[in-house]
């Protein structure tokens, strides 16, 4: 139970960092699809997910 909550916090921290990189325009996707902040591959352009 405790472990699950800690894991969720770590995951959310990672999501926050990804969100910040996305906002800053420094998030990219490499040839295998891996997200990175090393500007390897295509930069992730601004978008809004849509739908229910």
């Amino acid at each position, binding site marked *: 139970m405790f472990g699950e909550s800690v*894991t*969720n916090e770590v*995951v*959310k921290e*990672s*999501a926050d960092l*990804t*969100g*910040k990189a*996305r*906002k800053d325009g420094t*998030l*990219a*996707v490499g*040839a*295998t*699809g*891996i*997200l990175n902040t090393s500007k390897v*591959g*295509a*930069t*992730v*352009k*601004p*978008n*809004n*997910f*849509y*739908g*229910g």
Partner: protein
Amino acid sequence: MAGNKYIKKARAFSFKDIMAQYGEIKRKYNKVQVSAHKGKVEIFIQLQPTAESPMYTIKIVTKEWEPAVNVFVVEPDISKYARCKDNKIPHTYLDGSICLYLPNHNEWSYHDSWAETLIPWTCLWLYYFEIWLMTGEWLGGGVHPGDSETTTNN
């Protein structure tokens, strides 16, 4: 009338347009395959949003002379997760395709490179999908139909 017909055609993909998009995807991503039958084209790409993620097979579907491009997660079967979580995966359409951008807000147009828009957004969608599976929360922002459609991208 002829003008309307021209506009309709100009906003749809020719087979050559689709193959040009496929060519760019093939150059930029490692595992890409295509199948075409009677003007319908399916592009399959294997993507892994993080080093810990499974390998996902994505299918981009379009048809000659149609403006729509739909993106599906083919493998693993993510629909099974919907049954565990309120029967709905966030930011998906009824046909199971994933909702990558806000329509009618100039986020995407048929001129755009699929390799530089749809595929990076798909990787991002998969990343947030995995977090949703773990935490129950969609942390990728977005807009739901009926919202005021104020953009909320992170």
